[in-house]
């Protein structure tokens, strides 16, 4: 029987997109389905740390070695998504000397470049570190933008012939006896690019092989074919500051602990994180104490954080997995390694594998291993090229960085736009049309927004993850309406309006956890602008009844 596609990948996080790219580059026919936007799962809700491996250098040296290898590869193939910040493991007076030594030795064992700094040297690099710091280990940690990296994988997969369907939720896994042969998906607004308010539809997609890369949701998908995958989802909170208090990744040098990392990310610094098992990855409490705990604990390392302004907080859920029978108590002790579950071997059901666990940093290596496995199953002989082939935007980066072209933009905007777009900068920014800045906080111009809309349709959250528009201090207060405006006239007014409502509500969601001080004042300005000046909360266009215009003042002085 002819199938719709050779390989069907479920889940549009880093794992799924990485696999789709790998297989597409090997010449396989691939379809990927994702229920929301790309990165809507854990990938879009992580800490942004490109691990050097230092974190695992004592507890899990296999992971640590893999991290440093992949860290180096990603700097090459995804340079436009990585900032080489460096990282410090900081020892405070209470932290053990033995552990410090083990960390240093561990780094060396795993070939992670590591150097000891005195407290003073560390504070020269990061002046806001607490004065009572003893010493620090410097490692090549980095900051990574998971959104653009994941999207770049998807875009390249498409360039190699893959079909990428977002807003396409798997509602059934099709199983015939002991064989899985495809899925039923529900398209939120028809196949293709997202189009708000377009009618939904369902589609059966058959495949020779199905890869379940739905992370924390992998158990739910497996259950659709009566298979069991015991994911142990574990949530963690991250709190975003309005400025970069540090330019280096700051880790606390102690065996394990919550809330011990600060990652500089674009214009912000992100504090995190915690580790607490949850039962449902879609529905778990987001609590005040978690936010307070990360701020208060990390203020031990960087005291000014105590009084600093946060712009939002968000939670992510780790797709942790343990082989049956392990039963680790504390989720922090569950391995961060990934597992490839071949359901043919494990359950006697062919045509399906599930991938769970792992880290963002090692997504490419995971994808390579899984793709090898899939090729084996399909009898395809093709080698992996993802470690050498740069992602779109990272080709010839050195040339770009030397380039002086500012595309008629002010320098800070040009610089940030070029950093985001990498080698795609001139394709996107060179335009004869007027190109004003739409998002002033992040320096995003109309041309970049239009490019993102071209890729993703009417979903402004998809525009957001591609461009960072609406992710700065005002959290979309000033720009969300401008982003929606760009949808028109290609899409009609009602579509632009509902896209705006969706983005605006999404931006509010995370700000609720930062509502005090400056950010509460900011929230009030935003509320006033949208409700008072624009009357968006009581928009007559959105209500059913018709307004009796004749009863109101028509301006005629009688």
């Amino acid at each position: 029987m002819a199938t719709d596609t050779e390989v069907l990948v479920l889940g549009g996080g880093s794992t799924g997109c990485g696999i789709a790219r790998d297989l597409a580059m090997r010449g396989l026919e691939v379809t990927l389905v994702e229920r929301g936007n790309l990165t809507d799962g854990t990938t879009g809700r992580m800490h942004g740390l490109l691990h050097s491996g230092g974190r695992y250098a004592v507890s899990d040296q296999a992971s640590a070695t893999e991290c440093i290898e992949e860290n180096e590869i990603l700097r090459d193939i995804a340079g436009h998504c990585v900032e080489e910040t460096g990282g410090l493991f900081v020892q405070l007076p209470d932290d053990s000397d033995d552990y410090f030594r083990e960390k240093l030795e561990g780094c060396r064992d795993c070939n992670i470049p590591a150097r000891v700094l005195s407290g003073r040297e560390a504070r020269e690099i990061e002046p806001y570190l607490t004065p009572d710091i003893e010493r620090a280990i410097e490692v090549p940690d980095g900051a990574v933008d998971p959104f653009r990296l994941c999207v770049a994988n998807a875009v390249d997969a498409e360039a190699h012939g893959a079909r990428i369907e977002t807003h396409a939720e798997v509602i059934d896994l099709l199983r015939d006896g002991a064989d899985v042969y495809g899925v039923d998906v529900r398209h939120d607004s028809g196949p293709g690019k997202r189009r708000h308010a377009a009618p939904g539809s369902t589609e059966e997609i058959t495949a020779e092989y199905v890869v379940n890369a739905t992370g924390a949701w992998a158990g739910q998908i497996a259950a659709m074919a009566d298979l069991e995958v015991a994911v142990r989802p574990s949530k963690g909170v991250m709190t975003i500051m309005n400025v970069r208090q540090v330019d280096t990744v700051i880790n606390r040098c102690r065996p394990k602990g919550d809330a011990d990392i600060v990652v500089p990310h674009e214009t912000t610094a992100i504090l995190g994180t915690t580790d607490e098992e949850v039962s449902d990855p879609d529905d778990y409490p987001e609590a005040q104490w978690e936010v307070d705990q990360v701020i208060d604990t990390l203020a031990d390392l960087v005291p000014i954080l105590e009084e600093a302004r946060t712009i939002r907080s968000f939670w992510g859920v780790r797709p942790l997995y343990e082989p049956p029978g392990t039963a680790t108590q504390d989720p922090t002790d569950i391995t961060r390694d990934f597992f490839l579950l071949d359901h043919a071997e494990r359950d006697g059901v062919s045509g399906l594998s599930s991938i769970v666990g792992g880290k963002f940093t090692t997504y490419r290596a995971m994808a390579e291993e899984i793709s090898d496995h899939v090729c084996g199953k399909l009898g395809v002989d093709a080698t992996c090229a993802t470690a050498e082939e740069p992602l779109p935007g990272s080709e010839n980066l050195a040339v770009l960085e030397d380039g002086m072209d500012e595309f008629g933009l002010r320098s800070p905007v040009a610089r940030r736009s070029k950093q985001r777009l990498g080698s795609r900068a001139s394709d996107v920014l060179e335009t004869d049309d007027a190109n004003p800045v739409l998002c002033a906080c992040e320096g995003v111009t109309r041309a970049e927004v239009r490019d993102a809309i071209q890729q993703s349709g009417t979903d402004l959250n998809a525009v957001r993850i591609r461009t960072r528009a609406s992710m700065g201090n005002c959290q979309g207060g000033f720009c969300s309406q401008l982003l929606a405006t760009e949808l028109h006239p290609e899409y009609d007014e009602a579509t632009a309006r509902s896209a705006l409502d969706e983005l605006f509500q999404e931006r509010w969601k995370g700000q609720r956890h930062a509502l005090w001080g400056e950010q509460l004042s900011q929230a009030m300005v935003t509320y006033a602008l949208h409700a008072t000046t624009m009357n968006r909360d009581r928009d007559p266009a959105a209500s059913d009844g018709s307004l009796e215009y004749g009863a109101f003042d028509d301006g005629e002085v009688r």
Partner: protein
Amino acid sequence: MGRSSTEPSTTGRCAEVAISDDVLVIGGGLAGAMAALAAAERDVRVRLVTYKQSTLRQASGLIDVLGYAPDGDGPLVDPFEALEGLPTGHPYERVGSEAVREALAFFDEVAGDAYVGDHTDANALVPTHGGTVKPTARYPTATAAGLASDNRDALLVGFETLPDFDGPLAASHLAAAGVPFDARGVTLSFPGIERDDAKVTRYAHLLERDEAVSVDDSAATVGARDALAESVDEHLEGEPRVGFPAILGDERADEVRTALGEGLGVDVFEVPMGPPSLPGMRLSDLLYDALEDAGVRVTSGVPVVDYEVDPRGSSDTPADPSAAKTSDDPARGRIDHVVVDRNGAEVPHRADQYVLATGGLVGKGVRSDREGVREPIFDCHVPHPEDRYDWFVDGVFGDQPYARFGLDVDRELRPLETDSRPTFSNLRAAGAVLGGYDFAAEKSGSGVSLATGYVAGRRASTAVIR
């Protein structure tokens, strides 16, 4: 707002402090300005001390009185009728509906030709830059020809470099809102604008000064007003009125609008915009001119940071200490003077009566941290839920508790303690620093600031005379 008079005063009633007045207004937004103007109606010495630019820089410049009832009913045709039904504690309920009318009449007089809407009690529906319409009670003359109840067709002109207002999108939005006329939008390039990120003030100044601009790459230049009129003219299809984003000039906005209207043979109007808002800044300028004319001493750019109470107790309260525990007795007595921080120097400012008009969360008259919400100068009580996760609800346009943060006051507009006693005998509060109303949902922001500012100023000056 460069107008500040910092002359040291030697005629003060108290010899030991340099600066002394009858009424001191703290905060120079709409509420503070109204309070100072209303107080200056009487023969008293009034000073206004203000720190940063007021919320008018961000606000549309429309004077909303009440567009929706607190339960969401609306848009209300007649805001005055609805004032009677407001809950106890709402600022309008505190001052009474008659005072709201008086305050508006007072504003109408101050604003003169710059504002209209006083010919009717009915609200006007004004097209907004987002394309909706919203109810308001007074609007700048510049906006008058744009009302949505006017059934003449309209052309909406946006500019490709000014993304805040998109003519075609606003026009289809108005159609979706069911307006009784045809709206059509065009997007043009603005003659003389060379940078894609020019500020709104640049557009305004081009027109204000009628700068010479070149068109069609030719060497010849024309005035910016003619150039703009010409480029719009090509797109006109018989519409009798044309709307622009609110960038048509600054101090000479009337002249700019008239010139464009004559050039096009149509009525021209402005659509109010978000920050930085020229109509808001024009209103602010108008108020500061009026303050100067009224002889109010204005000190700007400096914050009030502290206060001292009168150690001799309150002269406004009965001398008999046995009467001291009535519910109307000020809990903390009488303010003797406040302290102004002038670039690090702490300068006492004394007055007989004080008006607190420092704004809400936006103006920074109400502040918060992770622990709670407070009023920073006098530490007046700001009611708020203890748990900060009860400060908001999940729907972004839901019934937001934070939007109501502010002071409780009595009918004299004196801030109240938790036990409902007034905090001080000689402090009144006005404007966004007050609590108990959600101006954004109700569309009542400027109206509340006007009405409470007016009443606080009147009462303060009356108390001085007494």
